């Protein structure tokens, strides 16, 4: 009953949202006039997020994972989405950070402590920067609705700095290059159920906020293109399937940034479809991971069910570049239409490199019967042993129950949501295309088909070595934090995973002695007398 509730309440919520008028509701709390903005576009994204939470809850129920924190995270995401003013936006963002951090922390695998800390500090840093902007707007503008900052802030040098600080805060939150390190390190290391929640919530909400506050900012276009190129290279190189998927997320963020830079009209529609496709792909990838019990892209992969494989292909449609068969691809082309021919060509080529990178993972062609490790007795023994260890380990609470080692049932578990989601996406594509007659496709189908065909063939026949990539990261906070940890050995004692290092300890003791000598009462008295002499001399002079 309890678990059934987690599937039921998002559906009720969806109907509730559908019936509410598309009008803003204002209320006064904490002395601020807060607004909940039920616009159609916000509702559209909310529907997408509700579908995600249904899928994620289904996954968590089947695998007996924790549901509560993930759903709290979802509710705060919805609150932030409908925030109509800067104050509730900030409140929502902070609550999202706390709930997501709790979700990461509750995983209780050895790395959860480290990644939670990183997630929390990164988002806290971003929130602090955003708060600088919010207080400034609050001080100089009576109207605190979420509006384009260029329109509401006075134009002077000081405002430009504030504007830039707020922008950086939001860019850190959406994991824009070069601040994308946190996403690429934390998401792949989260457990599977948290992964579905994480990939859609934080970055999407912050993209929407970026659109509301900074739409039309030209510099975002170049950042977007940079991200597309960066992600394409790393998709080709990455061996970890979850991290490869995270690079795909970066690719989509890049496209979204281009859309924001041109104040793209159908931005929300694009994001809605992106949420659906990404959820489908995430489920497909998780089915691969659960089937093979590995996140590594090796050639020894298990046989995949045809239906699951088909849903995977539906999931990569937006990357195929076949704009005539899908609404999202059409929108993607429209987004890049405003760019110059050279930039369009760069994006087109990058898209093809991207496609090659995805397809060369062989994920979408898997039917290797000979090396099917899932069916081998050796694998079953390992799996059984692992299951026993998990059941006995008290520190690892999220023990999978049910017959997880029965691989047919795993396929069955995934078939239902993948099938439902695939059908839903097809239907939505049909409906939405009829509602948006303006979005027309104009590319030569034969040419695109030929290019995609050649790339698919090349991806199938070529082999290249994949590696564990190290993302480019300018997470300044993380660098400072690591340095502090290095120099201040004492702090390492708080980390149960840290090893003691005598050299660092020696350095630390020297530093400690030095600081202590600075902070003794004798030094204070010395300061007092120096200052006193200074004051006497100053008074004497005047």
């Amino acid at each position, binding site marked *: 009953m309890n678990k059934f509730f987690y599937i039921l309440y998002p559906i009720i919520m969806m109907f509730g949202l559908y019936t509410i008028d598309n009008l803003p509701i204002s209320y006064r709390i904490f*002395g601020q006039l807060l607004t909940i903005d039920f616009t159609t576009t916000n509702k559209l994204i909310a529907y997408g997020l509700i579908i995600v939470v249904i899928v994620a809850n289904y996954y968590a129920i089947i695998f007996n994972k924790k549901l509560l924190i993930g759903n709290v995270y979802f509710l705060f995401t919805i609150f932030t989405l409908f925030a109509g003013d800067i104050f509730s936006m900030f409140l929502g963002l902070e609550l999202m950070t706390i709930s997501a951090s709790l979700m990461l922390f509750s995983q209780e695998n050895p790395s959860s402590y480290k990644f939670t800390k990183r997630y929390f500090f990164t988002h806290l840093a971003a929130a602090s920067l955003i*708060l*600088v902007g919010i207080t400034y707007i*609050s001080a100089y503008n009576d109207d605190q609705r979420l509006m384009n900052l260029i329109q509401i802030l006075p134009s002077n040098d000081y405002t430009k700095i504030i504007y830039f600080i707020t922008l950086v805060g939001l860019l850190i939150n959406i994991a824009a290059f070069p601040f994308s390190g946190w996403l690429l390190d934390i998401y792949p290391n989260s457990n599977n159920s948290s992964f579905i929640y994480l990939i859609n919530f934080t970055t999407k909400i912050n993209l929407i906020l970026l659109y509301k506050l900074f739409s039309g900012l030209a510099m975002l276009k170049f950042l977007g293109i940079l991200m597309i190129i960066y992600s394409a290279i790393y998709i080709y190189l990455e061996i970890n399937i979850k991290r490869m998927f995270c690079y795909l997320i970066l690719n989509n963020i890049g496209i979204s940034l281009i859309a924001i830079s041109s104040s793209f009209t159908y931005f929300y529609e694009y994001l809605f479809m992106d949420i659906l496709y990404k959820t489908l792909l995430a489920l497909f990838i998780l089915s691969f991971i659960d089937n093979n019990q590995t996140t590594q892209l090796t050639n020894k992969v298990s046989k995949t069910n045809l239906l699951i494989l088909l849903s995977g292909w539906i999931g990569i449609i937006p990357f195929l570049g076949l704009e005539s068969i899908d609404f999202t691809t059409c929108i993607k082309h429209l987004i890049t239409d405003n760019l110059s021919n050279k930039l369009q060509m760069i994006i087109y080529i990058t898209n093809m490199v991207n496609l090659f990178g995805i397809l060369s993972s062989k994920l979408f062609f898997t039917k290797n019967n000979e090396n099917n490790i899932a069916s081998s007795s050796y694998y079953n023994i390992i799996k059984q042993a692992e299951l026993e260890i998990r059941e006995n380990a008290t520190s690892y609470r999220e023990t999978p129950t049910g017959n997880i080692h029965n691989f047919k049932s795993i396929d069955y578990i995934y078939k239902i949501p993948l099938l439902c989601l695939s059908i839903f996406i097809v239907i939505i594509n049909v409906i939405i295309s009829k509602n948006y007659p303006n979005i027309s496709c104009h590319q030569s189908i034969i040419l695109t088909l030929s290019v995609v065909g050649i790339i698919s063939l090349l991806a199938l026949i070529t082999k290249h070595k994949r590696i564990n990539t190290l993302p480019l990261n300018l997470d300044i906070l993380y660098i400072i934090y690591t340095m*502090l940890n290095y120099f201040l050995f004492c*702090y390492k004692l708080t980390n149960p995973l840290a090893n003691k290092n005598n050299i660092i300890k020696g350095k630390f003791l020297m530093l400690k002695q030095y*600081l202590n000598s600075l902070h*003794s009462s004798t*030094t204070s008295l010395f300061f007092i007398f120096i200052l006193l002499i200074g004051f006497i001399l100053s008074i004497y002079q005047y």
Partner: protein
Amino acid sequence: MIQLIANPKFLMLLPLVLAISNIIVPVINYHKTLRNTLLIIISGFFFLSILLLGHFFENELINFNLLTFSQFAITFHIESLGIIFLNLLAILWIFSLIYTINYLEFHNIPNQTQFLFFFNLSIFVGILIAISANLFTMLIFYELLTIVTVPLIIHQPSEKITIGISTYLKILLTTSMIFFLPAVTIIYAKLGHGNFIMNGILLDKFSTVFNIILLILFMLGISKTAIFPFSGWLPAAMVATYPVSALLHSVVVVNSGLFCIFKILVYIFGLEYLQILFHNNNWLLFIPIITIGYSAFMAIRTTHIKEILAYSTITQLSIALLSAFLFTNIGIKAAIAHMISHSFSKITLFYSIGIIYSLKKAYHINELPNTSNEIKIVSFITLLAVLSLIGVPPLAGFFSKFYIMKAASYSNSLLVLITLAISSILSAIYLTKLLTIFYIKETNNNNIINKNNNILISQMIFATICCSMGIILFYSYYHKIDHYLRYI
């Protein structure tokens, strides 16, 4: 009856009489229950009397002259800032008494009469600082506060405590004698008085440079604000028991320091005059900024629970000073809001950590794993207090930080905005290391050593929860602060 209640002298004397009677009550040591009940009831009545005073107070200066020696007079008055400080002291007095009485019983601390006497006396001296009407009165009771807290710190003497108290006295007394006293003397010598008057008394009395020197003398002399390099007394005083530490950090001592600075800025120099003085370059902001950086660095390096809390206090005090040094009305209001929010957050944190110490005898953070499983409510309250100190909405710390940032935005002070943003991150780094260890589970670490006296622990938890309400409901009483400060 109403006429009697509304009589200014009655309004002023009633809380003083109640406070004095609460100092005497600990003498009834032959009947502990009666003593404890009386202490809490009188502190409750004291709170009500302060509420009455606040209700009838409409920016009318109520003066009360106690003694006069030549031009030096010990005079008290009621004004906006004082009312706010009195309210804070009154509400925290009730909960700190509930907590302290139970803490003393739980740990079987000897000479409880003496302890409670000095405990109440410290708060009483704090009250007198709050209502001081001139610099001389303020100086006298400022010094007295330092002295009356000494018996509390050395209540259970040891070598460590002797070293701690030596640093405490050396720094606090030396700075006030060398900087605070000369500044007061100079003003009295030139003006013949040091009365607190709206918009200040120093305009056109000294040269600009001399006024700046006087301001610096006050700043360094009132080292209860723990500015660098005179912040060493605060970690040194951490050798005391948890109720005393809470008293020093959240109730009376550091708040008195901040209060004195605010009062001197508003009533001796005047905010408008200070704005003119620092119009071109407000270099004074760098003093709290350096203190914030230094204390955060020290807090990150240590694993000792009390040291982390001490350095956190230094950071928060400097944030309040940062706001006050903007020299604007909104800056002073934000600084007061921050003083109050910090008081509630820190007292909650001290009391919850005090409960954990009572049960686990933990001195270092690496002795704290599994705490969240063992003492769930206290862990949750600690979480709230930590999040408030970091500045997470909708808790008290966020609002005060938001008001300071707003004040900085009005003054176009990007330096303050950035400092606040960085200080939040630094606070998060050292406070979350305290917090996360609570939630780490170690199967072989189950070291609750004292499971007796559940009633005493429950009452301590009750006091802590009451204090935590101040964090949660901060905004609901912020408009009251705004109301009192409308004339500043």
